[in-house]
């Protein structure tokens, strides 16, 4: 092999260029990802689904009366619990899947990653920036649903907003964070957008619930490792007093211990928060490590 050395004048380049910090690059990625989301069909579809659900509820309540949801006399807790029993956790699942499902895998499948990764930017900045963009886009969707809920609440109940509603909103955000962490992990795992979207939607919609039921009823073990078990606090917070952690049900002949029994577990609020935050931390770290190691080939 031959090597050639020559003295050359320095290239008159990069005058004034100053590479942003990695955190600055996270912000740039998030900014352009959000721009991309806003122009994408999926954002508009999810916004439309959310608006349809919220407006359908609004129309139904207007038609059947607020008492159909909040009892008579009108009970604020019942009203907000009723609204919350319908959609938010489902919307969180949709947001996670729509915005996170192919956030990373799409970069490989569609080759958009080739446009970005060859630049002086850490992959962690890309990952975190995309995560933030997905979170902010999801916040907008959640915000729309919350706004319609609150407007209805103000109309029927005035400013009587129960504290449980505020708690439920916070728990929903924690669930959203965990859900996005989870979908980003699977998005990093697969190079095909279809696989990552399919796997996450099955797991979030059905998988965890089935695991909860099987583990609780067959193994009689508390499903502390399940995201859906932890996210149960979002709706359980509306029950006053908060439901007991463990409930044993006995049915059939031979009472006094002779009948068949079922055990129901309800995550306590600290437990639910720990599970969801645990999911976020573990899946985010794993997803980031996978993305760091994944090859564009």
């Amino acid at each position: 092999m031959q090597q050639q050395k020559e003295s050359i004048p320095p290239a008159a380049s990069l005058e004034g260029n100053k590479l942003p910090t990695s955190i600055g690059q996270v912000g740039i990625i998030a900014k352009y990802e959000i721009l991309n989301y806003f122009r994408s069909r999926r954002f508009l579809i999810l916004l439309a689904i959310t608006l349809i659900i919220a407006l359908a509820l609004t129309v139904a309540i207007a038609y059947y009366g607020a008492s159909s949801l909040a009892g008579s006399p009108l009970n604020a807790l019942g009203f907000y619990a009723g609204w919350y029993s319908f959609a938010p956790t489902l919307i969180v699942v949709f947001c996670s899947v729509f915005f996170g499902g192919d956030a990373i895998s799409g970069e490989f499948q569609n080759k958009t990653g080739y446009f970005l990764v060859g630049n002086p930017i850490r992959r962690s900045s890309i990952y975190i920036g995309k995560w933030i963009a997905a979170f902010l886009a999801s916040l907008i969707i959640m915000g729309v649903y919350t706004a319609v809920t609150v407007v209805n609440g103000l109309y029927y109940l005035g400013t009587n907003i129960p504290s449980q509603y505020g708690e439920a909103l916070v728990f929903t955000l924690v669930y959203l964070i965990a859900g996005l962490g989870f979908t980003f992990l699977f998005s990093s795992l697969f190079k095909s957008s279809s696989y990552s979207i399919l796997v996450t939607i099955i797991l979030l919609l059905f998988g965890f619930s089935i695991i909860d039921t099987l583990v609780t009823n067959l193994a009689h073990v508390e499903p502390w490792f399940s995201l859906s078990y932890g996210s149960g606090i979002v709706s359980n917070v509306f029950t006053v007093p908060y439901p007991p952690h463990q409930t044993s049900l006995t049915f059939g002949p031979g009472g006094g211990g002779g009948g068949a029994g079922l055990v129901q577990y309800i995550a306590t609020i600290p437990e639910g928060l720990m599970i969801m935050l645990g999911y976020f931390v573990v899946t985010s770290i794993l997803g980031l490590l996978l993305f760091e190691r994944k090859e564009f080939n």
Partner: protein
Amino acid sequence: MEAQNLSKNYGSFTALSDLNLKIEGAKCVGFLGPNGAGKTTTLKIFTDMIRATKGKAMINDITVHENKRAALEHCGTLIESPEIYPSFTPKEALSFIAEIRGIPRAERSKRIDNALAEVKMEEWKDKKVGKFSKGMKQRINIASALLSEPDLIILDEPTTGLDPRGMAEVRDIVKSLKKRNRLIFMSSHLLPEVSDVCDEVAMIDHGKLLVYDTLSNVISRFSGDGSSTIIEAGFSKPIDDRITGIVSKAQGVISVEKMDSRNLKLKFAGGMEVQERLLEDLVSMRIGIISFRASGSALEDTYLNLIKDTL
């Protein structure tokens, strides 16, 4: 840029095997090899798209994998044919890269306009990329690699998807970059393209570097039987038997082949000194010679000889 014992395995398949290559200066280096030789693998390691199994890829003495931000700060890259978010316009896509690369806000717009003008895409700057042809997208990708005016430009088959005019324009861009003291490392399958724009060539096959030298040295060492050089000579008037006869009798000429009515392919023994004298002789014969250059097929001969030897 420097590869030190660079190796890459995919299971039992060795894509790259102990590649050592150091390239410095302001010039264009062509990176040649057949499909699967390891060209793109090498370039992807240099841009941290894949990891080396062994060895180091360094730019400005910085190991790319260990400090990608610093290593690629002065480096523009185009690997394969990237896709751009279809909802973006070229202006937005380049703004994205400009911000990532820290081009000052005051200069951003001007730089983007210049880069788009360089790839002849200024009229499309506000149209959505989703409706662009492959060639148009590739032009935007080239603009993106040039945007920060980097010292080193890594191009992986940059003319892929371009029409003949686009290919010629890319060659002109590369030539102009050389004049601006840039180092261009470019893989290509198009040997005439490499002959036209590259000063040096590195040939690789089965993951191993076969040769790295100046274009003329590589051709003179490895084309034909290794002792002869092929030149294409153009004439201002149709070539008749008289001219062919005169040329074939010139000192050093081994054979003459008529390419078309106004071009001859000359094979002669010897190096650059003989080539220089041959040109002087042909001019002095006043037979209407108007061009005299290394044959496009000379590199092809060289390539085929080298690659054949490794089969």
